[in-house]
């Protein structure tokens, strides 16, 4: 997981120089060696000096430039990633140009002089770049851009720009074969981190299997081997172990959870928050810097690739942990539980904080929150700001999940407080950026405030999180929900319609027998002028309905795009299969007969299966696992698809509502109809779709067509059936938790009662029925069918006695019948009526 860290810490070393003529070579080689030594011992200033000498010898060598940039970067304390990015890009460009110019010249040069193995961490995966150089002479293209590319990707990764990082790294991965082993390993690990951060299950399965094949360390299951290896490694790596490579996967999931709580069940999707990994990274890197000196032993690891077994055990642990993360991502909790146990075994004697964190995440996902808390507390020291902020965030997520929103706020704000103290570490370093999960945490805060009913603060949080999560439809949905909640709470006003329909205001005019009651009809005369921009002067978003509409449009757009993409890439890219098979064979010498054919034919996971299968006895098992992984991917995709459907329903319903509130019935109608056309639409949303469509049609002066939408619910005897039942709610809830239930039956369900909160947001079936009656009554009244209207409105009042709309309709019907006393009695009964001394002055003529 730390691959990225490496980045940070790492200075990449592109090695030195490879001069053509021996004389120069020796000089340059010596210089390069010096530089590498300096770099390793963290004497960056000296390193830069040496490199500059080197530069004079080898003007224009991109590798030298690259190394200078990295060394300078470290010398200056990792400031200004932007500048580094620029330099690296130039180097890359330069290399490409040179490569172009020099044709296919390949140099098989041992880059003896590699410099830097920088203070990477002890963990195996460390500094990829570094390893590159050190690499036991693997052939290298002088103009190879892979290291520069990798470093660029690392920087983007640390800046939380995953899409960017991915776009840089993917081409590298697709052409990974010629790249030297260490760089390739780092690239793969980084890619895996990014993909997991992006919740891309199928691609990460792909990379995972490639890793197993290429660097494959036999299956973890092999107890004996593993334990032996472990022992060995223990000695060697004792120090490295101390690096807590904790990836707090927790956060991620939490956020999802959180999502549940808020009304929509869409929660899952939220899980997006890549936070987890990020966290882990942070810590690590932080430590690297400070401790790298002590890790020297660790550094050797990459070089001494020769010592396969050592490389193996650490990598094995790493891969095992990645596997667990992958399984957690795909919510295959059963398997994840088994794999995490294995990981604990493999990592015995080593730092287990990462495994503990994953275990905590697992328990969290299973709903054993208390156990999760215990694991979290056991997982490491919390003295460092970065780690303690993750710890607090994770606790916040757990309490959120328990339905204790305000308690979770305590932890979230502590977590952000930790971050803020990190941020105060000026000047800004890349590390600071990468350790700063505050943006991710603010998303969690946003969810929590939404659940607590504080839309404005929630929106501020979500807005911060936009810079990380802008690709997630759910984020935009949440922002829109903030607007809607603010509207409901009367914090903002709808543009045209009166915002406060919750009470009927009755004005009393005149005195004695001339006293009259006047009911305000709510036609607003307030003008919404241009000043009603979305933003206040301070650049903070001002919640408004137009803003909600924009957010919903974004979300729909993103959702549609992802659906399109899914369609297009129905088959997971199988580019690498060929290569990978070769790689596997070359690298895993101990693995015999790799049936390449199979590889091609079957999916990526074959690799995994194969790996496991070296123990003959385990062939079967291997096959099983492969199948399960395949299953868990398809299961996960199914879940994602369902979740997207849910999001879409919510989006369309919200959008129709917003358009109605904005008095834009044309658009509202289109949206409501597309909601009704969704396949497998929940009955709840079908109901909303019909009601919204009917209202839009009324506004467009087409009462007949509107009636058609409502009459659907009317049975022959003029009664309305329940438009949806309690079981429809259950459906949403089950979908939320179903994966958990698979794992441990009913207990989960029993444990999450607080989540029911989202029920509140929907009408109860009876209320929905009452609303329908009220609407039917209004419709009949408009069409002049007073008797029918009377029948409906009485039904409505019996179901929703406190609804102002139903009361007003009833009063209207009574007045049309000339029964003013009855109307008055109804006014007095209704609990939303406020009698006011009128401020209106009538003039005599009226």
């Amino acid at each position, binding site marked *: 997981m730390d691959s990225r860290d490496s980045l940070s810490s790492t200075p990449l070393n592109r090695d030195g120089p490879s001069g053509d003529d021996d004389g120069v070579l020796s000089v340059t080689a010596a210089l390069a060696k010096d530089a590498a030594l300096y770099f390793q011992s963290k004497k960056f200033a000296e390193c830069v000096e040496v490199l500059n000498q080197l530069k004079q010898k080898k003007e224009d060598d991109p590798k030298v430039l690259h190394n200078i940039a990295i060394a300078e970067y470290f010398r200056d304390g990792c400031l200004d990633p*932007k500048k580094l990015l620029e330099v690296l890009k130039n180097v890359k460009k330069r290399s490409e140009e040179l490569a172009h110019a020099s044709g296919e010249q390949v140099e098989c040069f041992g880059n003896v002089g590699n410099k830097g193995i920088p203070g990477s961490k002890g963990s195996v995966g460390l500094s990829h770049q570094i390893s590159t150089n050190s690499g036991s002479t693997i052939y290298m293209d002088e103009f190879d851009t892979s290291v520069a590319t990798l470093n660029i990707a690392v920087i983007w990764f640390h800046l939380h720009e995953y899409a*960017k990082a991915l*776009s840089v790294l993917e081409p590298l991965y697709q052409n990974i074969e010629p790249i030297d082993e260490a760089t390739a390993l780092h690239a793969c690990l980084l890619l895996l981190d990014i993909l997991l951060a992006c919740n891309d299950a199928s691609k990460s399965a792909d990379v995972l299997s490639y890793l197993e094949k290429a660097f494959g360390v036999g299956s973890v299951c092999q107890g004996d081997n593993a334990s032996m290896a472990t022992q060995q490694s223990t000695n060697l790596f004792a120090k490295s172990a101390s690096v807590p490579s904790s990836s707090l996967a927790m956060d991620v999931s939490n956020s999802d959870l959180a999502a549940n709580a808020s009304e929509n069940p869409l929660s899952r999707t939220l899980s997006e928050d890549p936070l987890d990994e990020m966290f882990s990274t942070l810590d690590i890197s932080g430590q690297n810097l400070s401790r790298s000196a002590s890790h020297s032993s660790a550094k050797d690891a990459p070089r001494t690739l020769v010592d396969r077994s050592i490389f193996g055990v650490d990598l094995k642990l790493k891969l095992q942990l990645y596997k667990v993360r992958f399984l957690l991502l795909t919510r295959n909790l059963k398997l994840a539980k088994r794999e995490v146990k294995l990981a604990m075994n493999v990592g015995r004697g080593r730092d287990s904080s990462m495994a503990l964190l994953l275990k905590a995440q697992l328990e969290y996902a299973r709903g054993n929150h*208390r156990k999760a808390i215990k694991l979290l*507390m056991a997982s490491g020291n919390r003295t460092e700001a970065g780690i303690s902020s993750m710890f607090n965030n994770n606790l916040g997520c757990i309490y959120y999940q328990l339905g*204790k929103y*305000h308690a979770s*706020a305590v*932890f*979230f*704000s502590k977590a*952000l*407080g930790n971050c*803020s103290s990190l941020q*105060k570490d000026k000047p*800004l370093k890349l590390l600071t950026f990468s350790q700063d999960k505050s943006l991710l945490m603010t998303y969690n*805060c946003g969810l929590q405030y939404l659940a*607590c009913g*504080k839309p404005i*603060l929630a929106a*501020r949080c979500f807005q*911060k999180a*936009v810079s990380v999560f*802008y690709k997630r439809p759910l984020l935009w949905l949440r922002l829109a929900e903030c607007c809607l909640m603010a509207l409901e709470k009367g914090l903002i006003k709808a*543009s*045209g319609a009166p915002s406060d329909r919750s009470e009927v205001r*009755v004005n009393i005019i005149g005195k004695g027998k001339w006293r009259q009651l006047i009911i305000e009809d709510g036609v*607003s*005369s307030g*003008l919404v002028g241009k000043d009603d*921009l*979305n*933003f206040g002067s301070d*650049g903070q978003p001002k919640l408004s*309905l*137009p*803003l909600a*509409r*924009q*957010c919903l*449009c*974004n979300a729909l*757009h*993103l959702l549609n795009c992802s659906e399109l993409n899914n369609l297009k890439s129905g088959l997971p890219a199988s580019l690498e299969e060929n290569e990978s098979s070769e790689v596997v064979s070359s690298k895993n010498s101990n693995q015999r007969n790799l049936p390449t054919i199979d590889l091609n034919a079957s999916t990526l996971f074959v690799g995994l299966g194969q790996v496991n299968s070296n123990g003959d006895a385990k062939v079967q098992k291997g096959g099983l696992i492969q199948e399960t992984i395949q299953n868990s991917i398809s299961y996960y995709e199914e879940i994602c698809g369902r979740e997207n459907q849910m999001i879409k329903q919510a989006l369309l319903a919200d959008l129709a509502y917003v358009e109605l509130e*904005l*008095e*834009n019935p*044309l*658009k509202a109608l*289109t949206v409501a109809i597309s909601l009704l056309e969704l396949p497998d639409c929940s009955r709840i949303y079908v109901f909303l779709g019909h009601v919204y469509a009917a209202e839009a049609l009324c506004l*467009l*002066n087409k009462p007949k067509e509107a009636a058609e939408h409502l009459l659907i619910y009317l049975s022959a005897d003029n009664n309305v059936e329940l438009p949806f039942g309690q079981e429809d709610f259950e459906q949403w809830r089950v979908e939320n938790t179903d994966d958990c239930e698979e794992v441990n039956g009913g207990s989960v369900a029993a444990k999450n009662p607080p989540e029911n909160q989202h029920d509140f947001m929907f009408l109860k079936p009876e209320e929905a029925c009452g609303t329908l009656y009220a609407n039917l009554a209004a419709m009949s009244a408009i069409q002049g069918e007073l008797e029918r209207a009377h029948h409906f409105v009485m039904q409505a009042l019996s179901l929703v006695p406190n609804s102002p709309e139903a009361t007003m309709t009833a009063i209207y019907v009574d007045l049309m019948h000339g029964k003013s006393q009855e109307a008055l009695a109804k006014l*007095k*009964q209704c*609990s*939303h*009526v*406020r*009698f006011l*001394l009128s401020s209106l002055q009538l003039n005599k003529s009226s």
Partner: protein
Amino acid sequence: MLNLSSTLSGHVRFLLQSLNEANADSVRRELSQFLGFGIEGSIVVLQTCLDYLNLDKAEADLKNSQVEAVIASTFRYALEKPNSCTVLCQSLGSADISEDFLENFSKVLHLSVSEKIGIGLALCESENLEARTCGKKFCVAQIEELNASPDSVDSYERIQNIILFLQCSEDLSKHVDSFMQMLSLVQVKDVAQFVLTPILSDELRETNFLRDMDLFHESAGNDFDAILAEMEKEMSVVDIMRELGYGCTVDVSHCKEILSLCLPLTEMTIARILGMIACTHSGLEENSNIFSSFSMALGCNTSSDLPLLSSWNIDVLIRTIKQLAPATDWVRVVENLDHEGFYIPNEAAFSLFMSAYRYACQEPFPLHAICGSLWNNTEGQLSFLKYAVLSPPEVFTFVHSGRQLVYIDAVHGHKLQLEDANLAWLCLDLLEVLCKLAESGHARAVKLMLEYPLKHCPEVLLLGMAHVNTSYNLLQHDVTSIVLPMIIKNSVGAGMILYLWQVNQNLLLRGLVELLKSEQDNITRIVEICLELKILSTVLEMIPFPSSIRLAIIASRKELVDLEKWLNDNLYMYKDIFFEECLKFLKGIQSGRSQDFSAKLFHHSSAVFFKVLKDQTGLISSTQLIEEMEKLQATIMDSNPKLQNGGTTESSSSDGYGDDIEAEANSYFHQMFSGQLTIDAMVQMLARFKESSVKREQLIFECMIANLFEEYRFFPKYPDRQLKIAAVLFGSVIKHQLVTHLTLGIALRGVLDALRKPADSKVCIII
């Protein structure tokens, strides 16, 4: 709706026609104001403008640039509104839309490219297919133009719409890139850029990102701190306690940890805590785990086996609060109870709250805080008062209230069992706040609260209510109409009426008016009381005519008022109005709508009415009224010949008895219906009269029987009690063979009739 549109469009046309330089601004303002009247208004306005423009074009020479400017700005204004799509489509709906038309249209109105795109986008949503394709084409053309010569774009919302529009179909997506490029050249004033993030191209996003990154840690530091500060402000110890459960009050040190999460502990916070513990005094999930792991996570040393509490420990809580905030002003705490979410769900919660208060503070409860004025959280206030009024005095008392009803004189000696009560109903502040609550949507709940005093001390309640005036007087009137009849019947009622008269004449009069509509006995009793209090003439003057006429008639029976003179005086004074009221009254009698025995009484006064009315026709200006009067008189005379002689008929014809006989007969009925005379006594009396040798008594008997049968047709309108009495009497008369022959036939027919009707009709009760 039709009305609105025709009126509005007429008005708009007028405005445009009368437009000149001087009023251009005001017309423009007025037009944009119309656009605020929902979509209907907007559509009409735009349509009218459009029509006007077309008309105008016909006489191109006369084109008035002012008109164009005004219409253009109106359209622009409509375009800016969030519902521009519907409004534009609907108002352009009738026009023949073509690209030429749009081109022309925007030229005339001098629309900018961005505005033109807005129109095009709006048309894309039209229901009309042609308009849709045309809008699309128009849009694409304008976007191309925009790309070619970058111009400013109004808002990010427009940009978003454009991008989404371009991206949604394959053939347009080629424009996306050039549009994005254009965007990087254009500066938009708006700050809402973050909304665009997901749809920008990667390059643009990267530039933005890098630009922001520098700013990020410079400004964002502060920004984050601002959010953090906000978060700390929003942290609510109350909700945290609720979530963590009773464990928070396990002992002072733990309680302190929790309460210290948001210091300082203000009175507001304390009020919220008290409110919260009151409504969660039981039923929170008993899970000490949650609390212990919470405090463990916070880094407090907590042994994991804390005792399990089943409710809040008030002692610990209050002690902790006193330690953390020793200077707390408890009166202010109570004043802060008016907060969102405060609600007392039941009696146990109330007593828990009160015991917490007593524990914290020895002073009497500050009544002004709960019934001094209406809270914002009316529901919470109501829930508190509901239990406060019912509490025994040791839990809650109103005895120290500043404004109490001074009732001793008015209700002297009257049973007021207030000794063991908390004197709630003497507290005028309480009554006032209840009246206000009733008028702010809680009428039903407040009436439920009043059930107890209505049963146990109705008079006190009414007298107290009389002191309260609110905008609608909803509750006061309700109480009056329930209690006043009781007082009227009460032998010592006069004292209370006097008190009411002094305190709140309006309320009393309103109650009386309502009473006057009911039984005659009440009217008689009212007359007596008014006489006793010497307020009869004032009352007659002050109440509305329909009631005062009735009151005057009854009073004239007792010779307390000279009906003829009274009628004359009022006719002089009020002329047509009074004349009309008299006619209404007479009509009412004639159609038999007066439901009780007094109808008969009134019947007999009609002669006086006609006499006076006829005499005074000179005062009346409306001939219509006079004609009506004459017509009415004719019908009444026809149906009731005994009135023909101007009301002096003394003949004892079969269907008319002497007034005195009639009056006496009626008085017996009254006695019977008011319970002063039992039915048995009545039957015996009737039997005696029947056999009596005195002619007058025989007449009375006949008159009563006739009246009884005549009343038969009004039985369905009788109140239940009277109906039962009448039914028994009816039966007894038959049983005791007081009726024979012809009259027996009538009686039996009545009974048979009743049987034939559906079983639930009221008349069945007779049998």
